[in-house]
């Protein structure tokens, strides 16, 4: 028999966060809080599973289908847990011309994954994304929230090896820019909770 663990409501212990988010919007615009709530869950759990979709819908008094509709529009939100290293390969024009397809092929071959997949160990997820805004230093690979620029084959190999050792190399940035944005991801934990349906 499979023991099903009841998923605790995400915002039950985060009433202050919830109130802060809801407080940003007037009552008639309560539904607007769908984005920050989704992001809160995604940041914490590295996924937004169906139970969370229903929870957010209930908080906002809208249908779960609507939450799903918003969520699926953005590639930032994931229905299933993403790996410890989320490899996001820019595939828009500049990177594409500079060889992002080759980078994708190389990563794909190395990891045995294709676009949108996560490996069984939960180590890597790979995803083709649209422009990362660093066209002058194409091709760009974004790993979680860290930018690696001009990623050729050898650099890519070095990176993957580092990740396999569990390291997170310093960002390779040529110009200004920081990786300490307002919405920096929470530090990785060793065990990743996968929630209900993963």
């Amino acid at each position, binding site marked *: 028999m*499979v023991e099903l663990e009841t998923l605790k409501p995400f915002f039950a212990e985060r009433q202050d966060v919830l109130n802060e988010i809801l407080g940003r919007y007037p009552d*008639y615009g309560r539904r607007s809080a769908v984005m920050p709530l989704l992001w809160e869950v995604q940041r914490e759990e590295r996924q937004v599973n169906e139970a969370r*979709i229903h929870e957010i819908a209930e908080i906002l008094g809208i*249908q*779960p*289908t609507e939450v799903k*509709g918003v969520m*699926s529009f953005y590639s930032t939100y994931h229905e299933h847990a993403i790996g410890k290293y989320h490899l996001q390969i820019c595939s828009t024009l500049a990177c594409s011309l500079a060889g992002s397809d080759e980078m994708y092929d190389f990563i794909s071959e190395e990891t045995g994954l294709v676009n949108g997949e996560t490996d069984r160990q939960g180590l890597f997820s790979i995803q083709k994304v649209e422009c990362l805004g660093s066209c002058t230093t194409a091709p760009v690979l974004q790993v979680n929230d860290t930018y690696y620029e001009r990623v050729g084959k050898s650099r890519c190999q070095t990176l993957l090896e580092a990740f396999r050792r569990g390291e997170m190399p310093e960002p390779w940035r040529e110009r200004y820019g920081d990786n300490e944005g307002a919405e920096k991801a929470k530090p990785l934990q060793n065990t990743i909770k996968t929630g209900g349906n993963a």
Partner: protein
Amino acid sequence: MKVKVNDVELDLAPGTSAIDAVFAAGYDVPYFCSQEYMSPIGACRMCLAVVGAPRKERDGSWTMDEATGQPKIFYFPNPMATCTTAIMEGMVIDTLSDVTKKAQGGMMEMHLINHPLDCPTCDKGGACELQDRAYEYGSGHSRFIFDKRHNEKHHALSELITLDRERCIHCKRCVRYFEEVPGDEVLDFIERGGHTFIGTVEEGLPSNFSGNITDICPVGALLDTTSRFRGRNWEYDHTRSTSLDDASGSAITIDARTGRIERIKAALNTQVNKNWIDDGTRFGHEYAASSDRIKTPMLRKNGKLEPVTWEEATLFISEKLKKLSDNQLGIALRSDATLEEGVAAKSLAEYLKTGQIDHYPRYASSVISANPASFNDLATAGAIFVMADATEEVPMVDLRIKDALKGVTPPTLMAHGVPIADLRLKERMPRKTNILSVAAPYRVDLMKYAAHSMVYPTGTEVEVLKQIIDASTDAGKALKESLSAAEKAVIVLGAFVLNSAEASKLADDLAKATGAKVMKLGAMANSFGLESQDVLPAKADYSYPNMLSGSAKALIVSGLNPAQNAEVAQALLKLELLVVHDLFENETTALAHVVLPAKSGYEKEGTVVNLEGRYLNVNPAPVDGGQAVDFTGFVKELGDALNERLEGRSVRSARRLLKKSLELDLSELPLEGTIASAKAGKVAGLKTNTSGNALLVPSMVRSEYLNRNAHLFASTGGNALRLHPADAASHNLSAHDVISVSVGGFKRRLSVQPSESVPEGMMLLPALPDQPVGLVQLDLNSIKKEQVALEVA
């Protein structure tokens, strides 16, 4: 406002959309996303046209064109989507220019890029907007050399609706429909860009009006599962008729092929159902094509029913009738019998000198209001008080109330009909929920949309109404004030009120005191008409329940199955003659001397009067019913056996009679019907239970036919016994158990549905025509579990 479309000059009301101007001028532009009664959003970009308008100088004068001396037309830099463009004074719309044609052709090509073009196997083929428009505006060949997008072809959105994701062109009609019309946002776009598809997280589209999306889908993406792969559009006989499923008189189109009904679609009646029908009406037609229909008359010979000719059957009946003295014969019709059938039954009763004639189910008080509200009154009301389970009794009332919540009056019809793009409608309009108050003995669906709702203890309608009339509670006072203050107020009364003469009287008093109009929800499709035609017993002792318990020596029943009650069945055995006119063999036909084949509501010709008092024609679809006749046909056959030309022996003869009394020619009714005033009949002789542990409630899905409506059965799980989870636990019942139980003498088979919306200590089960809405005793000791739900470990 003066507008010029190509060469036609028009004078239209401000606020009209440019697309409507084009159609009003008699020209055409293609469109997929606009839909009557829904907001225009300009999603498909098909209705592009070159549009221009004159400009004003600062001093308010027109900027003139020096060459012509006329106001100069400034054209928009690009072709405009005419559906989202409002007309302006002096606007010029050009739908014939090469720029327009090229733009429309380009959009057409774009729509077809990912469309599978599987028209030969598509159910929509032949009635498909995309197909038609591709012929009219497409280029005829494809330049798209790449692989098309592939996606799921047979996705069951629910038991009733199948989605083909490849065919979808993302017009968003279905998504908008759910938000704007019934207000249940159960469908949305998922993903984005080229990957977009429509989908839902909820299971099985939880909405009572989901089927309408199959009508409005411009392609074959959303299909009615009951009719999938059953026929091509050009093979169907399309019969416009009126639904006999509830008292709304909704317009439907019956699509039949080779003598079988395959599909019901909504038809347009701007005054009643607009473009919409509920799921019970749309998907509840399968019973009519059931293989076990009675197709010939049958006569009991040596204890067994044997097929006979109509002559033999009616001769037998006439011989028996001749032996009866006055007032010994009872005649009962089901309340969805047509007016013509009512007239026929009355003339037969008159000829046979019996006062025992009745229609059933009916309520203890009249369904004809002194100050009746029409659907349009309801849709434009400023305050609405619903004391009913309106969604289940007459679903259209639910939808029209939601119109009132949006606060947009029904559109004015234009030369080409309903405006295609009504610019007053928007996506996600705020709803004026505070104008709606709902009271019912359990949580009803409409309460989700009402600012004020009240669940009162079953059977306390009188007390609730007194509280409002006397303004003795805060809520009652507020409600009475809002009804009085509103310019147009409507009170909707359902079975729970109409079942009690006292409560009805109080509700009428409340209406008088507040100046509100009253909408009374009749029990069945023609409750209003049969009452207004006085198909009622001559005295209270002759009512239908009395006929069953001994006042009649012989009985002719049409569409009713009283023998489900074991006690009544015993009484029926004593009858000298029992004639049953019905669709299927049942408990009563098992006792009958003569069984006659009846027509279903889709095969009848006749007239019904809906709850507004609107006379509407019912037209027969070509369905193979064997030797089935309606009640007028039966009267003719019986008249032949009696050597008498009885009035009401045909629809024509009945209409001749009705023409005299109504001053209305029922064979020449307009499509949208005619409202005529009517007086309340003398309804009497019905007793209602005032105690019981279960409540029979109205049901949108016809519970008597649910077993024969396979798809509806699968979607609803069968007739449900709803009870509070705590009660379910104490009766040792769990969700999805199928039980048989004795309810007020009827053996009912029900599937258990624990629900928080039911008050503790009360059980709800759907009413039957023979066991109408009201309290009843459910024998808890008689519960037998027939199927036990699978337990998840």
